[in-house]
């Protein structure tokens, strides 16, 4: 191989190593959220699977860059609402009769609020960014509700998508 082509290859490797460092710097909140969720009670296998998936998606998107890379932090921010609210409700109502129902409602409400926030951000973003942010937000939301059970996790994600999709679709048509 010619010296200049060797240098080009070395520079390309240096660039990709830099992209991985950048990806970890962008996606580190996902690592923090995933680690925190594994300390909660509940189905550890399910939570571990969701945590690993969130990490892989966040780091992978940040490494890729472009619209999906730019969607990582916004997606994590949107997912924080259903990640944080239901466990707080659970702590407040745990041991009472309304525990299960309150947590389910909290997952639905938090998921819906996150979905509306995602939809509000979506009208300024490209489609790949919206989808990427939606995926990351859904995974983060499910991490927050999964310790309460599979049902609450699905409710959180379902509410998020149900709130976001119609609004996003209307904006896209306009």
């Amino acid at each position, binding site marked *: 191989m010619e010296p200049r082509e060797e240098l080009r290859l070395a*520079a390309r490797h240096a*660039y990709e190593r*830099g992209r991985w460092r950048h990806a970890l710097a962008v996606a580190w909140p996902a690592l923090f959220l995933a680690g925190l969720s594994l300390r909660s009670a509940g189905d550890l296998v399910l939570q571990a699977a969701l945590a690993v998936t969130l990490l892989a998606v966040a780091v992978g998107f940040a490494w890729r860059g472009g619209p999906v890379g730019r969607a990582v932090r916004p997606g994590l921010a949107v997912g924080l609402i259903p990640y944080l609210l239901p466990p707080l409700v659970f702590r407040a109502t745990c041991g009472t009769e309304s525990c299960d129902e309150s947590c389910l409602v909290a997952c639905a409400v938090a998921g819906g609020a996150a979905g509306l926030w995602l939809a509000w951000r979506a009208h300024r973003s490209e489609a790949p960014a919206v989808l990427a942010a939606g995926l990351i937000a859904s995974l983060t939301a499910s991490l927050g509700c999964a310790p309460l059970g599979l049902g609450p996790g699905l409710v959180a994600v379902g509410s998020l998508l149900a709130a976001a999709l119609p609004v996003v679709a209307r904006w896209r048509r306009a």
Partner: protein
Amino acid sequence: MDARTRRAVSQWTARLADGDRAAFDPLFDALWPFVRALARRWLSDDADADDAAQQTLLRVFARVSEYDPARDAVPWIVAIAANECRTLRNRRLRRREDALPDDLVRAEASFEEHQLEVLATELLTELSPDDRAALRAAWFGDGRPDVAPATFRKRVQRAAERLRALWRARHGTP
């Protein structure tokens, strides 16, 4: 580097920072002759200059994901090149100092000091007459103006800042 190429380099750098790999080859092809010419201007030895240019290119591509697209890319690249040339030169000097007899080391240090004085004197001519007078008065006690000490200190401080800015623009960060 002409203005058109400079703009293209900034655009390719910004795209690469965002993860657009298609910008890698045009940026590499534009930068290699540029950083090589810079290094050959700063280092007397062609082999050393090529080493420094290669290290510069690798460092630019490793760090490009951290690059702020709001800034002009060329000064950022020039600063990295200046740093690599300085590091290489210092490393070579330290090796030679270990091998050289003391009086030769002293002669070389005094030559370098003289070179720095010549460069600094050149830059002094680019300062305004007031700045030059302030610095001459502060360094050589030559014609100190009849103003309050605090005012004089302020003038000297500003003149020194302007001289440092000129040095950075011309010779990079020391």
